[in-house]
């Protein structure tokens, strides 16, 4: 009796175990899961929660001032300052205010903050929680520039635009890259960009999280919990003059070696070195056009936090 029972029990246990194992296998292979993993970099390296009232933390932020060259290259209308009227931290928020006023020959003032010389990182997750202003003719942006900007210039240093917005499309925000041969300066070598439409909401109505996850082989763009774009080196379309030839064996050609008939022509993926952060609110320029007649000012861009992970 006992012998038989023991045997029965063993088989039952075995069946049970197999059943459990089989179910686990099935569940783990399930491809119906719609949620995407957007946060794979979880080690917080730098953050500014904007909790200390007054001027922005000078250990993290510098200011660009003035009008740059040709309105910062885009015919923008503002004169950037570091005055507290244009940039300040209050109520847990970084407030960048575009003001309509005559100032040093410009009709508007605003602010542009950057971590150049103070913080830069290659790869990782860069994100910020931002509420864009709703007025016309404004250009809020959250972006990165290659650290070698002063040495190699633009577009060679590379630019990653995490968030750009204009009122002409109040439900859209775009994420892009600019680089040598694909800077948007010449046709057809445009910069790479994709927009995300919120659908039944508009960006100036509330805060949203804008971020990138950046690896050697890709840059993922996300807004809130939606991954809306992935750019990889093979996405870059350039003319041969700006291309980087690779040999069949994947080694780059040099002046010394002769290039074998290229099988893999890509643009120069310059996103392989540290970049610093820029946050600004421009007025007017090529992208948003000028503000409407009678537009209300000041217009505020609010940033709840900036966080960088690796």
């Amino acid at each position, binding site marked *: 009796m006992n012998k038989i*029972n023991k045997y029965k029990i063993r088989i039952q246990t075995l069946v049970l175990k197999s059943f459990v194992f089989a179910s686990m296998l099935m569940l783990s292979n399930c491809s119906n899961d719609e949620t995407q993993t957007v946060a794979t970099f979880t080690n917080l390296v730098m953050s500014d929660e904007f909790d200390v009232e007054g001027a922005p933390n000078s250990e993290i932020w510098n200011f660009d001032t003035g009008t740059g060259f040709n309105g910062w290259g885009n015919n923008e209308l503002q004169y950037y300052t570091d005055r507290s009227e244009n940039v300040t931290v209050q109520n847990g928020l970084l407030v960048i205010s575009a003001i309509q006023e005559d100032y040093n020959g410009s009709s508007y003032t605003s602010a542009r903050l950057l971590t150049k010389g103070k913080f830069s990182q290659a790869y990782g997750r860069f994100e910020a929680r931002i509420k864009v202003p*709703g007025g016309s003719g404004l250009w809020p942006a959250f972006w990165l520039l290659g650290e070698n900007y002063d040495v190699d210039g633009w577009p060679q240093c590379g630019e990653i635009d995490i968030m750009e917005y204009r*009122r002409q499309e109040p439900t859209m925000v775009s994420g892009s890259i600019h680089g040598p041969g694909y800077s948007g300066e010449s046709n057809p070598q445009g910069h790479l960009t994709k927009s995300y439409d*919120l659908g039944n909401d*508009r960006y100036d109505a509330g805060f949203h999280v804008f971020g990138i996850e950046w690896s050697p082989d890709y840059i993922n763009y996300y807004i809130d919990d939606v991954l809306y774009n992935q750019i990889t080196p093979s996405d870059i379309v350039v003319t041969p003059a700006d291309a980087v030839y690779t040999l069949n064996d994947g080694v780059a050609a040099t002046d010394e070696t002769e290039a074998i008939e290229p099988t893999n022509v890509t643009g120069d993926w310059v996103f392989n070195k540290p970049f610093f952060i820029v946050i600004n609110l421009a007025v007017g320029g090529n992208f948003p056009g000028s503000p*409407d007649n009678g537009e209300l000012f000041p217009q505020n861009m609010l940033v709840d936090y900036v966080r960088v992970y690796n």
Partner: protein
Amino acid sequence: MKNLKFIHSKITLLTGLLLVILMSCERETSDQTEFATLSKTGEIFTDTPIGLGSDFYFPYLGSKATAWSVDESEGYESYASMRFDVPNANDPEGNYAGGILRVDGSGRDLTEFDALTFWAKASQGVVIGEIGFGQDFGLNQYQVNETNISLSTNWVKYVIPIPDPSKLFDERGMFWYSAGTQNTGGNGYTFWIDELKFEKLGTIGQPRPAIANGQDLVQDAFSGIDLELTGLTQTFNLGSGLNKTLNVAPSYFDFTSSDPSLAFVDQFGVITVNSGTAVITASLGGVEAQGSMTVNAVGSFEVAPTPTRAANNVISLYSDSYTNVPVDFFNGYWEPWQTTLSSDFVVNGNTMINYTNFNFVGNQFSNPTVDATEFSKLHFNINIPEVPSNLDLLITVKDFGADQADGGGDDTIQQVFFDASDFEAGEWSTLEFSISLANRTNIGQIIYENVNGSSLTEFFLDNIYFYRGN
């Protein structure tokens, strides 16, 4: 075996417990309980009218009543739409198309929507005068409209945002429109509307309400006189990135007077001025409206002296004290040169004519003309708020002659001039003179005009009558 049994009973117990918990809910309301709520349907017309009842289209007086129909061969991605045939300007049944769609029955709760949307196209590129909602032929309390809507020959989606959805908890006026042929040279045309509905778009933002069209107006007002705030609008930015401005009924706004004891403003934007100076401002949906109206009370407005002559000694054209004879008009709007505007001005029930933007204006009374043979004197009361020093006011009395009509070669005129010495600013003057015309049996017109560069711009007129005796 023993262990197995124990596990079994544990499970049974647990399940039993769960069942008990689930079933011991509190008593629910009976199936027959009906909670009174209004319909939250957004659709008005998709392929047929939705939820409007049977008696829901009401055309305006003077419009062509049959302008609206359902067209079953046209539709936006469907086979049915609402069709509006705007008549020619000379259509005997009505020279424009206009009307409302009103729910036949209880109103709808529209508080969860943010816009009225529809697809529209027309038989030609055309601009429609007005389209909106909130007109119910009752109080029209929450009426909204857009003006000059451009339609093209292919289907386009239109959005009319709701100024403040929280106000529309019980609304019957789903849609109204008015379309004429002012822009098409009097020639009729057709337009179609489909997928008419209230929607929650979520992409409407940047509310910018305004009163007095966003301007800061200053207005002198006589105490006891009501002023109406106009230029009430709401502007939104749509998901298309374009701004949309709407005309909005006063009930959407919350009005405030800086001193209610000096000037009081009611919920309809009507300002009653008592004394002193007060500033009227407003907000809509919690957003402060641009614009304001500063009212300066300038004392009470006196009415003209009450005529004392016996009624049988008077042929009156305009007076509250006499029965007036028929008058064709008090303002002929003589184009193209006349700029004078006119309106009735009422103070404590006493009516007078207010002429503004004055250069010249005429009163005409030819059905019948006035026989001034016996009643050979003319009386006017005139009040000029600001008397220019170069005032030169000419009053012309015209007899229409035997043909009793203006012109025809048989008219005769008498001209009487008045200057600044005849008036005190803001006070009633009595002007009287004898009619010296040889023929005065068919007096048909009195004309008032600025002459010799006179810069009179405004005056009040009352008690216009012919009389006899003293």
